[in-house]
């Protein structure tokens, strides 16, 4: 292996410090001492200039005097912590020995450390180095976590079955995840010829464990949704495993539809999930309301179950609460599900692939960012 020429080695990033103090001596002292150590130093003599320089340059660390005429250091840090561009910049306060209370207030406002005046430049340098190390380590942790979450999203999406891969199940699905690791999940499986299982589930919380758990649900569906078990039995078996494996305070709600195209019967099982919508080919759409315990919390559970005779052209919609529950209008299932019902009726004439998009756009205007994961699963008999 040959050595790379020196020009190929990226130059280390120059670290920038912003020194804010109304005393020109202090500013100059810190500038002299810190610039010798290879830092690029920006200086400000007052609050407004400090804010301006911080926003423009996003320094790696800020040394901030508390007592300044006009806008003091507290007001500056409040501003910095309220703006995304500057919120994560570590701030070290420079404070007089008599200002004990101000130290506490400084920490409350998000400062990482304080240095008592009069200070020794070497003490400042040692603290600057320490907090730069911490900040760099934290940032790289965040970057690597975000990268992992993005990989998870990819893996999670690849777990979702597409209508093309299972055309005989005759379904359409719309899936949008709010964060990198979504808490919603759907799955469709072929139990045997002409019998399919359709599941929409919603985990409490969005985090890495949630997306790992969605993979578990897919495996549990395969193991337990078989011709040996009744639909309710399958979901009960899945619940029993989830009680064992879910972390404390983690649970999920789910809606499961078991469709037998031979007997033309659809069995709906509800586990604490918003009511499914039934759109018969020749009758008005209706909500199928059922009570049912959530999954993964208790061993003895009772689920709402209903067996519905179906005919060709009938449609069923399973969906997650992200579609009907908004933190803005504080709507809850009961009222919001009525809107879902109306939307399902509205798209009656559309092919199901179009229908799911139509419902989504009717309930949540596309220009407004989503607040939760969204799943709509449409089944056509």
């Amino acid at each position: 292996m040959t050595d790379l020429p020196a020009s190929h080695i990226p130059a280390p990033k120059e670290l920038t410090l912003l020194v804010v103090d109304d005393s020109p001596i202090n500013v100059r002292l810190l500038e002299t001492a810190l610039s010798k150590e290879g830092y690029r130093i920006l200086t400000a003599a007052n609050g407004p200039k400090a804010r301006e320089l911080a926003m423009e340059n996003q320094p790696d660390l800020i040394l901030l005097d508390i007592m300044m005429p006009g806008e003091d250091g507290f007001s500056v840090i409040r501003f910095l912590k309220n703006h995304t561009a500057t919120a994560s910049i570590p701030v070290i306060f420079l404070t007089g020995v008599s200002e004990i209370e101000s130290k506490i207030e400084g920490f409350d406002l998000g400062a990482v450390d304080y240095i008592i005046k009069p200070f020794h430049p070497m003490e400042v340098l040692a603290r600057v180095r320490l907090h730069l190390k911490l900040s760099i380590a934290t940032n790289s942790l965040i970057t690597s976590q975000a990268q992992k979450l993005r990989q998870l999203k990819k893996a999670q999406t690849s777990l979702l079955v597409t209508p093309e891969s299972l055309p005989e199940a005759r379904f359409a699905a719309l899936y949008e995840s709010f964060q990198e690791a979504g808490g919603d999940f759907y799955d469709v499986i072929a139990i045997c010829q002409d019998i399919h299982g359709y599941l929409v589930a919603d985990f409490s919380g969005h985090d890495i464990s949630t997306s790992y758990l969605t993979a578990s649900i897919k495996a549990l569906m395969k193991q337990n949704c078989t011709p040996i078990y009744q639909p309710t039995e399958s979901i009960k078996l899945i619940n029993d495993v989830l009680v064992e494996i879910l972390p404390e305070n983690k649970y999920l709600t789910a809606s499961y539809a078991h469709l037998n195209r031979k007997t033309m019967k659809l069995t709906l099982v509800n586990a604490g999930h918003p009511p499914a919508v039934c759109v018969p080919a020749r009758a008005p759409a209706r909500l199928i309301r059922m009570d049912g315990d959530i999954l993964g919390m208790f061993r003895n559970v009772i689920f709402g179950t209903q067996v519905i005779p179906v005919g060709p052209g009938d449609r069923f919609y399973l969906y997650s609460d992200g579609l009907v529950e908004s933190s803005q209008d504080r709507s809850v299932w009961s009222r919001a599900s009525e809107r879902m019902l109306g939307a399902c009726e509205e798209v009656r004439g559309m092919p199901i692939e179009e229908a799911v998009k139509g419902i989504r756009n009717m309930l949540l205007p596309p220009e407004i960012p989503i607040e939760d994961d969204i799943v709509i699963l449409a089944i056509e008999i």
Partner: protein
Amino acid sequence: MTDFKQLAGDLGLETADFLELTALFIQTTMRDIEGLEKALEDQNAEAVKDIAHTIKGAAGNLGFKAIYILATVGEKNASEGKLRVLASLPAALKKEVTTLQKAL
């Protein structure tokens, strides 16, 4: 006699850098002392306190102890509203700063 080399060494600085800082200190402190005289004339305790605080910080950081102590006394008395005892403060400060200037 002020030992600039020693003071510079205490702060981990080169003597030349320290002398430059001292020159800046003398210049700004002379200006601050004028402000202090005016604030005392106006009986503005708040302004006296702020100016004394500024001088105190700078002198403390550079290791000019006599000036640091004078400014500390000034800040403390001003914060208690005792401006009468501070009548001679500007002159005392000026004397110390002039001594420093001569030593440069």
